[in-house]
């Protein structure tokens, strides 16, 4: 991923759309950001208590990343979750708890 102006790993370099074909102008394909795993430097992670959870959807709409997935069981995509803790703060039933990452 781009960090401080340098491609940090070779895989990113070869996946970059400007390497093979002439881009004409500076543009990126939609969703290219998925290569940026924002969950990498997390210092704490949230965990949803499935029994307390009523699936109201407040944590899902409040997440800045969009890392919470709805469904029978609400899941968190830990590749992208930054551990900001907004979901914990907003949950009306306090069904989420934070665990320190090692």
């Amino acid at each position, binding site marked *: 991923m*781009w960090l401080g*102006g*340098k*491609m940090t790993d070779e895989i990113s370099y070869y996946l970059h759309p*400007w390497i093979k074909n*002439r*881009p*004409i*102008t*500076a*543009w*990126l*394909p*939609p969703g*290219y950001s998925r290569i940026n795993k924002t969950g990498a430097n997390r210092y704490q992670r949230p965990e949803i208590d499935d029994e307390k959870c009523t699936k109201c959807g407040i944590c899902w709409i409040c997440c800045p990343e969009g890392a919470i997935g709805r469904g029978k069981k609400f899941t968190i995509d830990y590749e992208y979750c930054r551990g900001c803790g907004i979901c914990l703060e907003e949950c009306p039933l306090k069904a989420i708890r934070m665990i320190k990452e090692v």
Partner: protein
Amino acid sequence: MGAKYLSGCAAAAEAVRLADVDVIAAYPITPQTAIMEHISKFIANGELRAHMIHVESEHSAMSACIGAELVGARAFTASSSQGLALMHECLFFASGLRLPIVMAVANRSIASPVTIFADHKDSLAQRDCGWIQYYTENVQEILDMILIAYRVSENEKVLLPSMVCFDGFFLSHLSERVDVPELNCIKDFLPELRPKYPTLDIENPKVINVMAFPEFFEEFEFDKHYSMQSSKKVINESFEDFWGISGRKYGLIETYQTETAEMVLVGMGSMMGTALEAVKRLRKKGVEIGLVNIRVYNPFPFQEIVDAVKDTAIVGVMDRDISYGSGGIVFQNVLLGLYNKPNPPPVLNFIVGLGGRDVTLGTIEKIVGTMEKVRREDRVEKDIIWPDLNTELIKAWKIGD
């Protein structure tokens, strides 16, 4: 083929009608306001199916054209002096996004002091933006160049915006006989816009205008520079094709008897019409003089000018502009072309016609007189000469030695 009696602004509007432009966004500024007025009339009468965006500044005018081109609509705008300076940042935006916008520039000098009259300072101040620049000598050329500009800019080998420059009041408000081509002739010459650049398309989404880090930035710049240089070939091809449908042949430059000339005058804009008349009269008197009229300023026709002047004894570049502290801008370009060539002729710079001062036959004779004197004495005392300067005024202002 209909002949009409049109002013420069009216001819530009006719060209916009023939090019079937989709979106026009322009802000009024003297001397180009009549272009907007004529286009508004065409839209109101249904002769042109387009939308006019009455923007609130020139910066917004260029931005609106950029927005329209990005969704695949052909766009046009027109500006002059202050407005052109205001949209400076957007000129880079447009050429960086490789959008084929065409702008008509009614050359007018920039404040301060305030003026509404012509010189080339406003468009030459934008020469580094990556826009192709055409300069015209008469009203017919305004109409022709706008059509050719669309064809060149939309070509996938070029994809750079263009400006068609004509002197404010000298051409914008002068009426001449103009051959207006038929709409169906132009439809073959200039087909519908098919964008060859990234667009905002729902079916094919893109994130446009991202950051290019140092690893990539220079290559984008090289791409633009290379396209600007290879546009010379596309321009010449378009000139050929236009000759076929109209009978008027244009070139990157136009020369008059430079093969047999001992002295050559180089310049661009409406003053070259006067210069041509002066050169013809001098030729009748036996003076071996030639003329080079630059039509396409950017990409600069280095090779063509060098070929025209390399065997001559002295070159005089007439600049209707001044880069304070450096001299004439066209002069600098011509010097660049002649540098490193074997035995280049001496080049003199004549600053004329600033702020609308008329370039008359008398001015040209003064210029030729200076060139002959320098040739006779065989030394160049001053290379930047102001032939029309009011030296009494300068003495009264106590400027200079």
